[in-house]
C-alpha cells in the first residue's frame, strides 16, 4: 500500500472513530442524566401521591369501589401530565390506567417490600415508561408510570443527527486527509521521481531545498545525484579514452601486420628475383621490429601504471650523467652540443622511471634535430619545488598540436617518425611517469626554434 494511502486512511479512520466514540459517550451520558432526572422527579411525585393517598384513604377499611373511585380521580388528574397510576391490592388491580403496557411486564414490581421502591424502565413498541412501585399499605402497591418516550426519542434524534453529521464529516475529512496525505508525502514523491530519473539515465536533476524539514534529505539526494553524474561522466570519459587508445593501437598494428603478411606471402608465392626476395625479407624484418618496439613501449606504459613507485634521494649529477652516456654516440654522430646546469643536489624520484623519463625527452630532442644544435638539461629548486628542464634547438612543435602530443600514438610528422622508428608513445610515457610522481609537465615550443619541456616535482 502506498504511504499516502496509509496516511489518508489512518487520518480518516482515527478521526471518525474518535468522533464517534466521544459523541456516543456524550449522547449516552445525556440520556442517563435525563433518565435519572425523570426518576428523581417521579420519585418525588410518587411520594407526594403516596402521602396524599395515605391521608385520604383507609386501605384496610375502604371498599374496593371506594378505592377505585378515589384512584380514578387521581389517575385522571395525573394522566394529563403524562403519568399513569395503578393500585394493586388483595391480589388484583383496583385501579390501573397504565393501559398501553401488558401487566405481565411489570409483575416483578408488585413484590416490593415496605420502605423500599422498585423502579423499572419498560419500553413497549410505541412508548417508554419509567415505572415505580411503592408499598403504601399492607398488600396495597401503588404503581406509578411516567411516560419518558421523549427522552428516548431525543436520543434517537441525536443519533440520527450524528449519523447525518458523520456522512458529511466523512466527505469533508476525506477531502481534507487526502489533500493532507498528498501534501505530506510530496517530498517522497519528489524523491521517487528523482530516483526514477537517475535510473533512466538523466542525472541533471535538482530537488528543491526550500522545504525546511525536507532540506536535509533533499540536500543529500542532490549530492548523491551529483556524485552519480560526476562518476558516470568520469567513467564515460575513461571508456572513451580507452576506446580511442584501442582504435589507435589497432590502427598502428594494422600497417606492420599487413606488410608482414603481404611480404611473407610474396616470398612464398611469387616468382621473384633474388633482389625482390631480399627486399621482402628486409621489410618483414623492419616491420616486425616496429611491432616489437611498440610492444615494449606499451609494456613500459603498463609497467609505469602497475609499478609501485619508490621515491628515494638520488644525486642529480648521477641521473643526468647516466642519460648522457646512453646517448653519447648518437650525439657525436649528430654533432649535438650537450650542456647541463645543476643547482640542486638531490632529487627524490623513482630511479628506473625517472631514467626512462629523461631518456625519452632527450631522445625526442635528438629526433627533432638533424645535425648540429644543442641539448641543455637544467635542474633547480624554485619555491620549494624541484624543476627539471630539457631544452633543445630542434624543429619545435606547431602550436595547434601542443595539446595532443601526450596522446598515445600521436605523431606530429607521421612519415618522419616512422623513419626514426617512433611509435608515438614517448611523451605519453613521460606524462604518465610525471603523473605518478604527482608532478606536472609543461611543454613550451616555438616552431623552427626549439622545444623546452619543464617538469615540476613536489618534494
Amino acid at each position: 500500500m502506498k504511504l499516502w494511502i496509509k496516511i489518508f486512511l489512518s487520518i480518516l479512520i482515527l478521526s471518525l472513530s474518535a468522533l464517534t466514540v466521544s459523541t456516543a459517550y456524550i449522547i449516552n451520558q445525556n440520556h442517563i442524566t435525563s433518565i435519572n432526572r425523570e426518576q428523581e422527579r417521579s420519585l418525588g411525585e410518587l411520594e407526594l401521591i403516596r402521602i396524599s393517598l395515605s391521608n385520604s384513604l383507609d386501605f384496610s377499611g375502604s371498599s374496593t369501589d371506594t378505592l377505585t373511585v378515589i384512584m380514578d380521580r387521581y389517575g385522571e388528574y395525573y394522566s394529563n401530565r403524562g403519568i399513569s397510576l395503578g393500585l394493586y391490592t388483595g391480589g388484583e388491580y383496583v385501579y390501573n390506567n397504565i393501559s398501553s403496557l401488558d401487566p405481565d411486564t411489570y409483575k416483578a414490581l408488585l413484590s416490593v417490600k415496605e420502605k423500599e421502591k422498585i423502579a423499572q424502565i419498560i419500553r413497549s413498541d410505541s412508548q417508554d415508561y419509567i415505572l415505580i412501585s411503592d408499598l403504601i399499605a399492607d398488600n396495597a402497591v401503588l404503581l406509578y408510570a411516567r411516560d419518558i418516550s421523549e427522552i428516548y426519542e431525543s436520543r434517537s434524534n441525536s443519533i440520527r443527527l450524528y449519523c447525518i453529521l458523520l456522512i458529511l464529516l466523512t466527505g469533508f475529512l476525506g477531502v481534507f486527509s487526502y489533500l493532507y496525505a498528498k501534501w505530506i508525502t510530496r517530498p517522497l514523491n519528489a524523491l521517487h521521481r528523482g530516483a526514477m530519473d537517475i535510473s533512466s539515465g538523466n542525472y541533471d536533476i535538482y530537488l528543491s531545498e526550500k522545504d525546511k524539514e525536507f532540506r536535509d534529505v533533499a540536500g543529500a539526494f542532490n549530492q548523491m545525484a551529483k556524485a552519480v553524474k560526476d562518476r558516470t561522466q568520469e567513467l564515460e570519459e575513461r571508456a572513451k579514452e580507452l576506446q580511442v587508445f584501442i582504435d589507435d593501437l589497432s590502427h598502428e598494428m594494422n600497417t606492420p601486420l599487413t606488410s608482414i603478411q603481404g611480404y611473407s606471402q610474396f616470398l612464398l608465392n611469387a616468382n621473384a628475383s633474388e633482389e625482390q626476395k631480399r627486399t621482402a625479407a628486409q621489410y618483414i624484418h623492419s616491420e616486425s621490429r616496429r611491432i616489437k618496439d611498440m610492444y615494449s613501449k606499451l609494456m613500459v606504459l603498463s609497467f609505469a601504471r602497475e609499478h609501485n613507485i619508490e621515491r628515494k634521494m638520488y644525486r642529480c649529477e648521477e641521473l643526468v650523467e647516466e642519460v648522457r652516456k646512453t646517448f653519447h654516440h648518437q650525439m657525436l654522430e649528430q654533432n649535438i652540443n650537450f650542456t647541463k646546469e645543476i643547482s640542486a643536489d638531490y632529487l627524490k624520484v623513482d630511479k628506473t622511471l625517472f631514467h626512462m623519463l629523461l631518456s625519452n625527452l632527450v631522445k625526442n630532442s635528438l629526433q627533432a634535430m638533424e645535425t648540429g644544435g644543442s641539448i641543455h638539461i637544467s635542474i633547480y629548486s624554485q619555491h620549494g619545488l624541484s624543476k627539471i628542464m630539457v631544452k633543445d634547438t630542434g624543429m619545435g612543435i606547431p602550436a595547434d598540436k601542443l595539446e595532443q602530443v601526450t596522446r598515445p600514438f600521436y605523431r606530429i610528422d607521421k612519415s618522419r617518425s616512422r623513419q626514426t622508428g617512433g611509435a608515438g608513445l614517448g611523451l605519453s610515457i613521460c606524462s604518465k611517469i610525471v603523473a605518478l610522481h604527482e608532478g606536472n609537465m609543461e611543454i613550451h615550443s616555438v616552431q623552427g626554434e626549439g622545444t623546452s619541456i619543464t617538469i615540476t616535482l613536489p618534494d
Partner: protein
Amino acid sequence: MGHILIVDDEKSISDLIVMNLTMVGHTSEQAFDGREALEKLRAGHFDLCLLDIMLPGKDGFELIDDFKKANVPVIYLSAKSSLTDRVKGLNLGAEDYIIKPFETLELIARIDVVLRREGKNKNIFTHNKVTVDLNKHLVLKDNQVVDLTSQEYLLLEALILNQNLALTREQLLSIAWGYDYSGETRTVDMHIQRLRKKLEWEDIIKTVFKFGYRLEVH
C-alpha cells in the same frame, strides 16, 4: 594489363603492392601524400588508382573528385574498416573498397574486375610463341589456333591474370571455375597437364612443391 597509381603514405605497403602488381604484369607509380598524388595524376595517364584514405595533406575522400574528373577509376585501400567509411567511400564514387590487411590475390582479382569493367585492361598476353586474346577468348600458338575446352581456357586465364604468383589447386579451382564449382582438386591437375601439352608449356607452368602451380613469365 594496366598502369596503376598507388597512393599510400606507408612505404612498406606501397612497395608491397608495387612488387605484386609488377609480378602479374601491371605497371605502377607511387605517391606518398595527397599533393604528390595530384602531381602524378596531372603528369601521367593511369588506368586505375589505389587510394589510401588517411593521408598527410589532403585525404583520400577529398582526392577522389580530381580522379573522377581525370576519369581514373579509384579503389580505396584503407585500414578504416567501419561500415560508414565503406559506404562513404563507395558513395563518393569509388569502384571498390578494400580493407587492410588485404590478401594479395584478392587485391589482384578486384583490380582485374575494375579494369575489365572500365575496358582498360590490355587484353593480349604473349609469351613463348603463345598469344592469348583475353577479349576474344582466342589462343594462338605459332599463329595457329589452339583448340581448348572452355574449362581449360578459364584455367589458363586464371594463370595469366596471376602470372608469377603461385596458386593452390583450390584457389585455381575457384578463380577459374567459380566458387560453386564442385569438382575435385584432381581435376585441376588433369587440366594443367593438358594445357602444358597443348601449349608446350611444360617449363612455364611450374609445379610449386607442396603448394600448387605458377605461370612463370620472366
